[in-house]
């Protein structure tokens, strides 16, 4: 459901820089369904791959299948992203705040001890320079924070300052897609745009500990995955349920 909901926000015209994990699956699914012309890039230097099966991550050569060209980071994160040619960044997150800023570096327990994760990689670059960004992550109350344990990648605002004032380009995070709901990040803050079929609205809100606005008329229900989408995910893209377990 998470992957299907994220894929639905990807457009056929997008030039998408795709991060590790769930974002890969969402991009692959969109490419295989409603957005066949969507062009995918991987930061390590892969242009327009069309992978047909599962992979262990962006550094797994199976993810590079069907690529039109290989290059380097100065081409993908440089000429394409810093050069203003990436319409969509697809990123995972450890934690996200109401501005759509992302933490992928570390979390602190109540005693203040750090537990470290993957760091930025190209995530900070993608968040800083894409025209728009989708965050794709599991819904867990610990993953929503009014103040991030570490602000790896800026969203629409940082400490109240808009990204344009900071010198950044593009819109920043426009939506956070989880396995329970879609949160749109508006200039005024996060809006609970839709909840997924079978989810209880109040419970979703209770599990989203950031200040959340409601759209006029309340959140809609996210369209359910089609059988075709399910089959592609289960049979081709993630048969061993590495990501969609």
């Amino acid at each position, binding site marked *: 459901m998470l992957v299907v909901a994220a894929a639905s926000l990807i457009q056929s015209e997008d030039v998408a820089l795709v991060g*590790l*994990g769930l974002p890969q699956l969402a991009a692959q699914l969109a490419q295989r369904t409603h957005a066949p012309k969507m062009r995918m890039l*991987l*930061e*390590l*230097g*892969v242009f327009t791959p069309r992978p047909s099966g599962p992979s*262990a*991550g*962006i*550094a*797994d*050569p*199976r993810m*590079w299948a069907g*690529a039109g060209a*290989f*290059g*380097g*980071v*100065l081409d993908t*994160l*440089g000429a394409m*992203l*810093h050069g203003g040619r990436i319409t969509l960044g697809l990123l995972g997150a450890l934690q996200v705040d109401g501005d759509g800023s992302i933490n*992928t*570096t*570390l979390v602190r327990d109540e005693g203040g*001890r*750090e*537990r*470290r*994760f*993957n*760091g*930025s*990689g*190209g*995530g*900070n*670059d993608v968040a*800083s*320079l894409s025209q728009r960004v989708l965050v794709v992550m599991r819904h867990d109350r610990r993953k929503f924070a009014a103040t991030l344990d*570490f*602000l*790896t*990648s*800026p969203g629409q605002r*940082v400490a109240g*300052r808009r*990204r344009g004032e*900071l*010198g*950044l*380009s593009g819109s920043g995070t426009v939506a956070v897609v989880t396995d329970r709901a879609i949160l749109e990040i508006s200039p005024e803050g996060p809006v609970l745009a839709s909840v997924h079929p079978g989810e209880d609205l109040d419970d979703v809100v209770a599990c989203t500990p950031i200040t959340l606005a409601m759209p006029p008329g309340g959140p809609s229900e996210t369209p359910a995955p089609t059988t075709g989408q399910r089959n592609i995910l289960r049979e081709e893209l993630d048969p061993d349920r*590495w*990501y969609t377990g």
Partner: protein
Amino acid sequence: MSKVVGLEEAVGLVGDGSQVALCGFAITRNATAAVAAIIAAGRRRLRLVQVVGGMETDLLVGAGCVTSLVYSGGSLDRFGPLHSVNRAIASGSIEALEYSTLSLSLRLFAGSLDLPFVPTRTLLGSQLLEPLVAAGGAAVIEDPFIGHPAVALPPLRPDVAILHANLCDEDGNAVVTGPLWSIRETALAARQVVVTAERVVSAGSIDPGLVTIPGITVAAVSEVPFGGRPTAVFGEYEFEASLFEEHVAASRRGGDDLAAYLDRRIVGGWAA
């Protein structure tokens, strides 16, 4: 004229305290054989530089060879994080300077040309920036043309870069197939380059249009078939999941389990 030497001699260019740049990326094209030889040689106080860390980074840190790390993070893709690296940073046993992938690649690009610095718009607004400025690894400046804020990144010129190539000739002209992430910037920024290669051939037998790293920048070449195992080397072999699972389990547990794993693999290697 030939630069071909044994692996032990090649990694002899890495001394205690050297700033060593690694060219692997997560689970792909790690110079695991060269890294094992550096560990076996007992090198200490290494200062690592790597755009995206992977197995080679976790091995060197896990083996206690490292005092500092300049990187933009890293992982072993779905197999897990770099446990030894993360633990060493959290405990303060190594110092880490963290960039984004593009900003560190630009520091290495600046190093490769010895540019005074390179300005960028990335990193602005991130908590990554402040510690970089404090350490002299970045400065916030104004664009002299339109007055916008920019992050100036100083050149980075490591002592030695270690690269595992598909093919290399005796003069050091090295061929890397597949995506190149920051390999060229890293190798060209380093004062010396050590190449391990699946195959070493005589000078003049490689199409110059296929060469990724010009031999003129390479100090030593060593033929090491399967020198990237268990990571994936594009055009040669895939990654080996069970060996990553073994690595991650040992690295997560640390202590005696990690020591036993290193004892076993540093001597025995990962080749089939």
